[in-house]
């Protein structure tokens, strides 16, 4: 039998977790409940976050938009603020699983699950997100680029919950792009996923940010590619260079969903095309 704790506010949730850091936080359960049907591993004790009001919702401030950890992808995908400020995130939200999954799956769950194929993760990387973790000791702000430390390992401590994600409002003129390559449009885990942000000034890329998933043990921000591309004039030549640099920068693997060769090929093509779309 699994012991389930169902706190109704954040303070209670954090103090329960503080007392027993072995508790497994539980949100939409679209990862947690997918277990081997034969072995059906039972979790000893879970901490249900779905009744903790403070963790859910989207708040727009002057400098940043904040998204609570248990906000679902349906809520994110249908938010006018997200669509206006972070179209790449809105697009990602609408291609995660199908409708039923989006109604349950949360942003915090996607982040904590830390799959290299998690679709929202490269988007958070290019948006320069800050993750706000909470524990009984207060809040800790973690730059999202420092959050994924290894294959399915994160900077989150067992006594911490993901409280929210803070997204700085982009400079006017910034263009965002997102593309997921899967077996089909819906309900498919990505073979390759790419997020991009760029800003063109006087024909040159004043800002260029690129991140990808499913091509390394963690979602990755491709900083070296960015450095080589920033400042160049927009066009076919720069786009092709970005594609080939991206391909050279990653080391994808073969697995059940795809092969290393296909992933590298797809990454190059997608990066090239999205870079062209930044104009």
């Amino acid at each position, binding site marked *: 039998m699994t012991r*389930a704790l169902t706190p109704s506010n954040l303070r209670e949730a954090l103090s329960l977790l503080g007392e027993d850091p072995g508790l497994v936080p539980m949100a939409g*359960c679209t990862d947690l409940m*997918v277990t081997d049907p034969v072995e059906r591993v039972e979790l000893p004790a879970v901490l249900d976050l779905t009744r903790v009001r403070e963790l859910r919702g989207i708040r727009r401030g002057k400098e940043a938009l904040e998204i609570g950890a248990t906000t679902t992808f349906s809520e994110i995908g249908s938010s006018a603020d997200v669509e206006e400020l972070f179209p790449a995130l809105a697009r990602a939200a609408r291609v995660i*699983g199908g*409708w039923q999954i989006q109604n349950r799956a949360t942003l915090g769950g996607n982040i904590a699950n830390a799959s290299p194929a998690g679709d929202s993760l490269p988007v958070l990387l290019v948006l320069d997100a800050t993750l706000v973790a909470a524990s009984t000791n207060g809040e800790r702000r973690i730059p999202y680029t420092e959050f994924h430390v290894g294959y399915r390992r994160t900077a989150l401590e067992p006594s911490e919950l993901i409280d929210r994600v803070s997204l700085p409002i982009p400079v006017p003129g910034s263009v965002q792009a997102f593309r997921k390559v899967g077996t089909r449009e819906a309900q498919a885990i990505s073979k390759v996923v790419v997020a991009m942000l760029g800003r063109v000034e006087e024909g040159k890329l004043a800002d260029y940010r690129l991140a990808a998933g499913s091509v390394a043990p963690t979602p990755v921000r491709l900083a070296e590619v960015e450095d080589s591309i920033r400042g160049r004039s927009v066009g076919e030549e720069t786009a092709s260079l970005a594609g080939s640099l991206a391909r050279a920068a990653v080391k994808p693997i073969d697995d059940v969903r795809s092969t290393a060769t296909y992933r590298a090929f797809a990454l190059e093509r997608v990066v090239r095309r999205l870079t062209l779309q930044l104009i």
Partner: protein
Amino acid sequence: MARLLDVLRERLELTGTKEGCGEGECGACTVLLEGRPVLSCLVPLVQCAEREIQTVEGLADSVPSFFEQFVATGGVQCGACTPGIVVTAAALLVESPKPTRDEVQKALAGNLCRCTGYEGIIRALIEEAGR
């Protein structure tokens, strides 16, 4: 953790809700949780306390014409996917009373049907919406 799906089928004997894959891929187990379609194979019972669940049995009373449309268009063959599809479709019609074909396809993307080729299902829905 006890799954909502098992409690519905085995304890409450509401066997209209089907189990296909048991891992979120097929949509056969779709029910409405607070009015929104979710997969009951991935919902632990503990999250259902004091929350409203509606199954296909509940819809049979509220939208009987819908069931007839499915039969009329050939949207049902073996029937394994049908309860999940009816539940998802009913939720779509609440959200979007006159859905476009594209909206129907997007809404049903998480409901697999191995028999009908989807055409009859999509027509049933569009015809129901046009009534």
